[in-house]
């Protein structure tokens, strides 16, 4: 039963960030959408089965999510820098 809740939570999270990207439309939000979707897919994959292969997929998706978050933050910093609002 937990599996269904986990999959619903993941789908809702990815759907909300898709709406956020569609309404705010900035490069930062597409990276954020990719990262959050990867994390949500990882959550769904891990809850669906306890197969070791699914465990490896979970790790890879989490790593991709982390890389997506880092890419989003670099995009954000770079776009503010381009706009002349440098951090340092």
């Amino acid at each position: 039963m937990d599996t269904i809740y986990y999959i619903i939570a993941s789908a809702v999270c990815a759907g909300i960030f898709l709406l956020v990207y569609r309404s705010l439309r900035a490069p930062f939000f597409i990276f954020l959408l990719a990262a959050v979707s990867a994390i949500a897919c990882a959550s769904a994959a891990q809850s669906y089965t306890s197969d070791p292969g699914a465990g490896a997929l979970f790790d890879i998706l989490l790593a991709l999510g982390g890389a997506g978050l880092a890419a989003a933050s670099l995009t954000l910093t770079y776009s503010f820098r381009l706009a002349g609002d440098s951090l340092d």
Partner: protein
Amino acid sequence: MKIFIVPEVYPYLMPASLSLRAFSVLSACAIVVAGALYAPVPPPGDRYQAWMRLAAGFLLALGSLTLSRAIGGTFLRQGGNGAFKALYWAGLASAGAGLSEALSAFYSMDVPLTIVLCTIAYSASGLVLLRFKKWGK
């Protein structure tokens, strides 16, 4: 003159308010504790899988911390609004999920639960962002 640099540097050194930072760090700690308390998953048997978990967790925690730092240095630099404060909070809270994934290489942790808590935090921040788009607050 150097003194004119100070107002530029000062908000960067204090990216978010102390209460927001404290709440975010407490949320991350709560996620790690929740993962350690309930239905622990045993640590992996082989070394390769342990390294994979450690690397994935470290990357997720690093990405989350970078995101929070970037939001603190840009959107929240002049005080910011609730939407980006919520995103800052979700970013730091997901660092807790990354930390618990890294810890699961050595200890029994319920990592799926921590990831679901992290997705709930992101969903909440996404809803606040949508509200920000609609009402501008």
